[in-house]
């Protein structure tokens, strides 16, 4: 299937998730009200899933009922919005339908009851970690014949997406050694002893390599090197890559050496790990909801302090979310600890 002209013309990111877009449009075009193939779009936080949802809203403005969720759903009122002649329902952030607590699945059950008998086509978007959880515990995948997992992107995809935003030429500098560096220096480095959590700062003698620029990446390769480094640090996540780009690009040039690496040193107990996993799975969660999930066993204030202090979580207007730059680190940590399956 070729590129959908509406998708290409209307969207900010014309070539992001094109295969996935084609799959969705094929299902929409083949929609049969007797047997609707509901769609679940599953993605990590910040992965750029809104591109597909926005695409559907623009492609079928007259057919779509749009229900975006912004926080934990606590009443069935959202179901009353599904009325009228429109035959497609697009639902954002459906992971807000379930809360990981006793009795926390009532809204999800009500929603699944609804789609089981509905003739409309539901296009839903889920956090990948909540989806895995609900798949294991509630077999949610059986309600969605079409599941679309958004893949990690590579630097070849990222580069045109980013560069298409600028008309002026951007200078890419590949020097690894800053030019101001003297021949001999002793920069301080933080080192961790093996199998110990203690860090020590020690001066490490260092001789400048080359002539302060001779060991740089070839100018023609600097552009690719920059995007390769960004995508490597972002672990293929579009949103994180975008943030890294914004942090590095000063309006005129990008220096490869300035792309910030993300340290990953996580030291949490089981309660803090659990809350971290909840924040990762919900993408954005209020203190009240978090307290309900945590229960009396967990000291929420202390746990949040430690999560924030370790650079894993940020608070925005009373809602907690994973710090985008720490996403890869958090994913690795909760997976290793079997908090997510």
């Amino acid at each position, binding site marked *: 299937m070729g590129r959908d002209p509406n998708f290409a013309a209307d969207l900010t990111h014309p070539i992001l998730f094109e295969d996935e877009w084609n799959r969705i449009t094929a299902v929409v075009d083949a929609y049969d009200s007797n047997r609707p193939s509901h769609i679940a779009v599953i993605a990590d936080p910040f992965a750029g899933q809104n591109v597909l949802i926005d695409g559907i809203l623009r492609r079928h403005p007259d057919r779509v009922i749009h229900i975006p969720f912004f926080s934990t759903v606590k009443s069935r009122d959202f179901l009353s919005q599904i009325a009228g002649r429109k035959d497609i329902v697009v639902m954002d952030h459906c992971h807000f339908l379930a809360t990981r607590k*006793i*009795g926390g*699945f009532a809204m999800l059950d009500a929603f699944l009851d609804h789609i089981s008998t509905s003739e409309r086509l539901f296009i839903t978007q889920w956090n990948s970690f909540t989806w895995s959880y609900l798949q294991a515990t509630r077999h949610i995948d059986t309600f969605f014949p079409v599941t679309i997992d958004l893949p990690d992107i590579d630097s070849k995809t990222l580069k045109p997406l980013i560069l298409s935003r600028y008309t002026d030429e951007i200078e890419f500098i590949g020097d690894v050694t800053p030019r101001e560096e003297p021949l001999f220096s002793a920069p301080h480095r933080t080192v961790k002893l093996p199998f110990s959590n203690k860090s020590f700062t020690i001066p490490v003698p260092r001789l400048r390599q080359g002539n302060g620029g001779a060991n740089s990446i070839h100018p023609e390769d600097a552009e690719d090197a920059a995007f390769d480094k960004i995508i490597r640090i972002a672990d293929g996540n579009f949103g994180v890559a975008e943030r890294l780009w914004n942090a590095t690009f000063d309006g005129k040039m990008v220096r490869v050496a300035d792309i910030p690496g993300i340290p990953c040193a996580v030291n949490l107990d*089981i309660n803090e790990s*659990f809350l971290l996993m909840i924040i990762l799975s919900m993408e954005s969660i209020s203190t009240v909801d978090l307290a309900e999930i945590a229960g009396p066993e967990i000291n929420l204030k202390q746990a949040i302090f430690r999560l924030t202090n370790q650079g894993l979580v940020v608070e925005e207007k009373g809602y907690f979310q994973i710090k985008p730059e720490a996403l890869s680190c958090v994913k690795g940590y909760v*997976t290793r600890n079997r908090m997510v*399956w």
Partner: protein
Amino acid sequence: MAEINMTSAADGSLISSYIPDMDAVITIVLILVAAYLIVKVADFLLRKISEKAGRYRITVTMVIPLLKIVVYVTAVYFIVKTIFDPGLTELALFSGLFGAAIGFGLKDFFADIVGGIVIAFERPYQIGDKIEVSGTYGEVTDIGLRATRVVTPDDSVVSIPNYAIFQEPTASQNAGKTEMMVVIDIYIDPRSDAGKAMNILKDALITSKYVYISQKRPYTVLLKDYPFYRRIRGKAYVNDLRSEFEFRSEVTRRAWVELSRQGILPPPPAHVPEEIFAE
């Protein structure tokens, strides 16, 4: 190389006595020290690595008993070579002495060593597993050449001779995996709504911070009726077997908070199940 002294006994027979010289003694000591250090360092490193390995923790510790056997067997080989540099005669003599030693009281000791080798290769359990042998339940912390050390839930260290695996059934609760099934029973008044209670226990299980659920590791909630009470039994896997008791406690506590809130009561005191007293 050790000296071989041939002396003549009163009955005229030749008695061969092997008196190792000082060099040989030092070599033997060095071999023993080196073997001990290698085992200790490797053991320490592998345990540290295993702690970082998440769900592969037990797979990593599995190597420890194998490594011990390889190192100690190699050490014994070099010691024997240092003392005897065995030819056929020496080998026959050594075998004879070895057989006699086994016959004269080291039988159990060698049975333990053979048991250790069987455990290392056949792996009925591994370091990190939760096992039950000879009425002892606990986590395996070390598989030595002679004995397996198990830490019980009340933190007692029990040494179980390795030959026990030949004589006693051995139950491994997790069979080398990090996750382990935990059975949680809740007893309710027979007049209470059992369906509601089952749903609450199910939610308590699947929302626990310790739970691990997959296609191969499902959860179940079962109901059994007794004359004076009902038993709701939840079965689910804890994500790390070390959290077995925390998992049980957390699920039970959260379930009872909700059960009480919903008006579901425990059995009347006169009909408290005998299992509770047995525990």
